[in-house]
Structures are given as C-alpha cells and as structure tokens.
C-alpha cells in the first residue's frame, strides 16, 4: 500500500512538472500580450519531432537537446513575429483564433514533413539511454523519466525564478506583464520582452516535449493539443498571467489527475482484509475503475468551476478589467 502511495506521489510530481513547464510559457505570454497561445502545445510537439529525428539519426542525447531547444525556440520566435505581432492589440478572441490557425499550420506542416520524409503519421519515439527504464528503491519502482521530469521541472523553474527576479530583462518582463504601457514608460522595448517570453516559453515547452515523448513512447503531430489545454487549466487555476501561479497550478493539476486515476477502482486493489466488505462495495460502486477514463472531463469540470468561482485563480489579482 505504501509503495502504491509513493509511486502515485512521484507520478503526480512528474506530471505536475510537465504541466508547470508548459503553463509557465503560456502564462508569460498571456501576462504581457493577453494572448492565449494555443499553438504553445505544438511547440512541444515540434520539439518531440526534432528530438525523434536527432536520436533516430544516432545523435547523442547531449547533442540532441541543444538542437531540439534551439529549433523550438526558433519556431516560437518565428510564430510571434509572423503571426502575432501584426495583430497585437486586436480583440482577445481574434488573437486566440489566430493561435488556433498557427497550431493548424504547425501540425499539418509536421504531418507534411514526415510524409515527405517517408515516415508514418505515428512514429515510435526512440527512448534515449539515460531516460528509459525504471528506478528501483527497495520495493518501490518508478519510471526513470518521471524522476527526471520532476527534477528537470524544479531545476528549470528555479532558473526561471532567478532570471525574473535578478536580471533586468526578467524584471522588465514582470513589469510588462503587470502594466504594459507603464513598462513602456520605463524605456522597456516591448518587442524584446515579448520575444524573450516566447523564447523562454519555447525552451521550457521543448523540455516538456522531450519528456512527454519519452513517457508516451510514440508521437504524432497532434500530441500538443491535450497538454496545452491542461497547461491552460493549470495557468487558470494558479492565476493567469502569474508565473508562480502557473507553477502552482501545474502541480495542483498533476496531483488532481493522478488522484483521480489512483482512486478509480481503489475498491478492487485494496489488499484483502484491509477494509470491511461494505466499505469495499461502496468504493467499488462510487469509485469504479471506469472513472479513470473520465479524467479529462473531470479536469475540465474543475476548470469551469474555477473560472466561475475564482476567475482570477489562486494567486492572481483582478486586473485591468478585461479578464471577466
């Protein structure tokens, strides 16, 4: 039983790290531009593809990672420049819809490229040495990638914290997120700050993409869609536009998901004799294992609940009056 709990906690932290890495990028861009960039998930997908091709071509992981991060950041900067800068200041919905269009272009562009390269739509992700396999501590076994995800999340988010508090550029980013025109009056170059946010967001999404692909074992051009939705939920839960909120939201969401999966069917897996038959029957009826397949629906219900009850999220403040 205790192993089960420990494993679930590690799973929750690993999932939380991935969501946090994704949500931070969304939140940074949203904070400055009020743009929900749904194509953010596709950056993650692109990273997974670059990594798959790099590793597939026999490149070492140490070489693949810089290539992947560099490629993803390039795509992220390009999308800001080509698609989002021309419509800066447009109504919310117009920018949101544009990001869907950008996502379509990235997904189908990837599809087209893989076809031209003679690859199938769904390709197996070559598990790199050092990320595959399981780690065992006594009776507890955890996939290694989950531990790496958790550690990578903590390290990168720590670095990000240092960046936004210690450097002038990081400070400018926070100022721009809070009040764009006041930030301009400080002499901050908006384009530069926006590009920085996209670059950092892309790099974090790239990391998440690699880890996600290792976990899933296979990739297709559409793998970014669900994660970006989840990251969005994480960002909203935490308080949209706030980096700390996005991180917090990411871990809350990870915990919530793992919790739903873990309690589903709990009545069946409790060791015999640990609970009375009535309790077991009750659990089996109300927490059936089928509940796990409703996980995404439950998560979205939670999102809608948060939007209604506390639209500014846990750490967010009511701002500029345009959020609701």
């Amino acid at each position, binding site marked *: 039983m205790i192993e089960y709990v420990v494993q679930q906690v590690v799973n929750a932290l690993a999932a939380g790290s991935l969501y946090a890495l994704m949500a931070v990028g969304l939140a940074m861009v949203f904070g400055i531009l009020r743009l929900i960039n749904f194509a953010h998930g596709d950056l993650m997908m692109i990273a997974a593809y670059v990594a798959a091709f790099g590793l597939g071509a026999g490149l070492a992981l140490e070489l693949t990672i810089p290539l992947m991060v560099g490629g993803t950041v390039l795509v992220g900067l390009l999308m800001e420049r080509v698609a989002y800068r021309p419509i800066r200041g447009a109504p919310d919905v117009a920018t949101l819809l544009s990001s869907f269009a950008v996502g379509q272009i990235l997904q189908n562009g990837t599809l087209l490229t893989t076809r031209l390269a003679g690859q199938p739509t769904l390709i197996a992700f070559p598990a790199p040495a050092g990320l595959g396999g399981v780690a065992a501590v006594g009776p507890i076994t955890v996939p290694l990638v989950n531990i790496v995800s958790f550690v990578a999340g903590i390290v990168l988010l720590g670095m990000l914290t240092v960046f936004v508090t210690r450097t*002038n550029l990081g*400070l*400018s980013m*926070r*100022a721009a997120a*809070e*009040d764009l*025109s*006041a*930030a*301009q*009056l*400080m*002499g*901050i*170059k*908006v384009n530069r700050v926006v590009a920085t946010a996209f670059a950092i967001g892309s790099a974090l999404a790239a990391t998440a993409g690699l880890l996600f692909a290792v976990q899933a074992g296979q990739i297709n051009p559409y793998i970014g869609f669900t994660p970006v939705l989840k990251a969005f939920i994480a960002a909203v839960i935490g308080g949209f536009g706030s980096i700390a909120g996005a991180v917090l939201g990411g871990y809350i969401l990870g915990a919530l998901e793992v919790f739903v999966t873990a309690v589903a069917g709990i009545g069946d897996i409790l060791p015999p004799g640990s609970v009375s038959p009535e309790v077991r029957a009750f659990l089996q009826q109300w927490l059936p294992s089928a509940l796990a397949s409703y996980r995404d629906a439950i998560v979205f219900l939670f999102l809608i609940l948060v939007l209604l009850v506390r639209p500014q999220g846990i750490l967010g*403040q009511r701002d500029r009056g345009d959020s609701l």
Partner: protein
Amino acid sequence: MLELTGVEIRYGNIRAVRDVSLTVGQGELITLIGSNGAGKTTTLRSISGLLRASAGRIMFEGEDITRAPTDRIVAMGISHCPEGRRIFGSLTVGENLRLGAVTRADRRAVAKDLGEVLEIFPVLEQRLGQAGGTLSGGEQQMLAIGRALMSRPRLLLLDEPSLGLAPLMVERIFATIAELKRQGLTILLVEQNVHHALDVADRAYVMETGRMSLEGPAHVLRRDPRVEQAYLGGGEVRA
C-alpha cells in the same frame, strides 16, 4: 528644449487634441492646466510616444520625435510619470526603482542615483522590500516620481502628481517639485491643483476641450480673470 507645433491626436475618429503648440525651455517648470477631459494627459502621452500625433510635430533638443518609439524617447532623456501613478503593485519598491533605470548600463551611476532618490524620499528607504501595491497613496506617488527620476531625465513629465492626496502630502509633493526645479531639472507639470501649480511654475498653458486657450507667465495667469473664473473658484482672489 521641447517644442510641440500644431499637434493633433485622435482616438479612432474622435479628435481629442487639436492644433496644440507648446514650448518648454531648458530649466523651466511649465504647467499645463485645464478641466477634466481637456486633453492634458493625451498631450503628455503623445510626447512620450504612447500615442501618435496624427498631425503636427514634436521636437526634443532639436530632434524630431513625433514618430519615435517610447523606448527611444526615454533613452533621449524624457521621463513620464503617468497619471494615476501606475506603479507595479506586485513588484517591490526596490524593483520599481530599479525598473526606472532598467535601460541604463552603468550600475555604479544607477546605485548613486538610487541613493539620491532615497535622500529625496526617505520613506521609500524603509520600504524597499515591500510590495509597491501595499504603499499608501502618498508613498506610491513618491515612488512614481522617484522611479521616473531613476532614468536621469533631462525633461520630467508629471501628470497630476497631487491627485487624490491629503493636503499635507500635496504640500510635500509640490515642495519636492520646487526642489527638483531648483536643482536644474526641466519639468512639464500637468495639474488640476491650479493654485499650487501656478505657484511653482514659471509659465503656464491652459487647455480647453482639446485646444490651447491661454498661455503666459504663471504669475500673470494667476491674476487673469478667465483663469480665476474657471479654475480658482469664481473671482475669489488669493493673496
């Protein structure tokens, strides 16, 4: 130093400011007064490049800045302390001040200026680590002015620094403005508090519904019956 000629500014189809001309000379303290919605803030925003003039020209130290981006205008030495203070509430007082100097590379000089600003506003020193949003209104105004000073401006644009402050604090702020002028800073001050503004200013401009209606030395305008009528409480003569 600063010269606006025939400036017109639109919000969409609405002309908020038309044919505004104004000059600020080196070392002068100029005040721009006028009732609500006259276009004072709009004029300042066009000087700092947040709004684009649809006609006319804005020159700063012989250079045309009509179409220059805000960051360039700030770099040239114009600092705009905006209406409503607009400090970054979730950032600390220290971070707010640092942001004022965010474009300056010389860390040593910035540290020295921080010392000077804290000398002008000693309250801020005790609050450096506190979130800006938790300051009182008067403290926030001091922070906003201090932040604007951190860029080492040659021209300071102040938009209603006394807005919403208690009388004692208003006195404090105007004393500071007078002191900054004494130190040689050029200031363009937008105010609703016409008494005080005319007291400290060298010259004044009066705006009405988007146009300049009057201009002249501050002490002359103070006696102008039109100004008295409109802004100094109907004919009441102040000593």
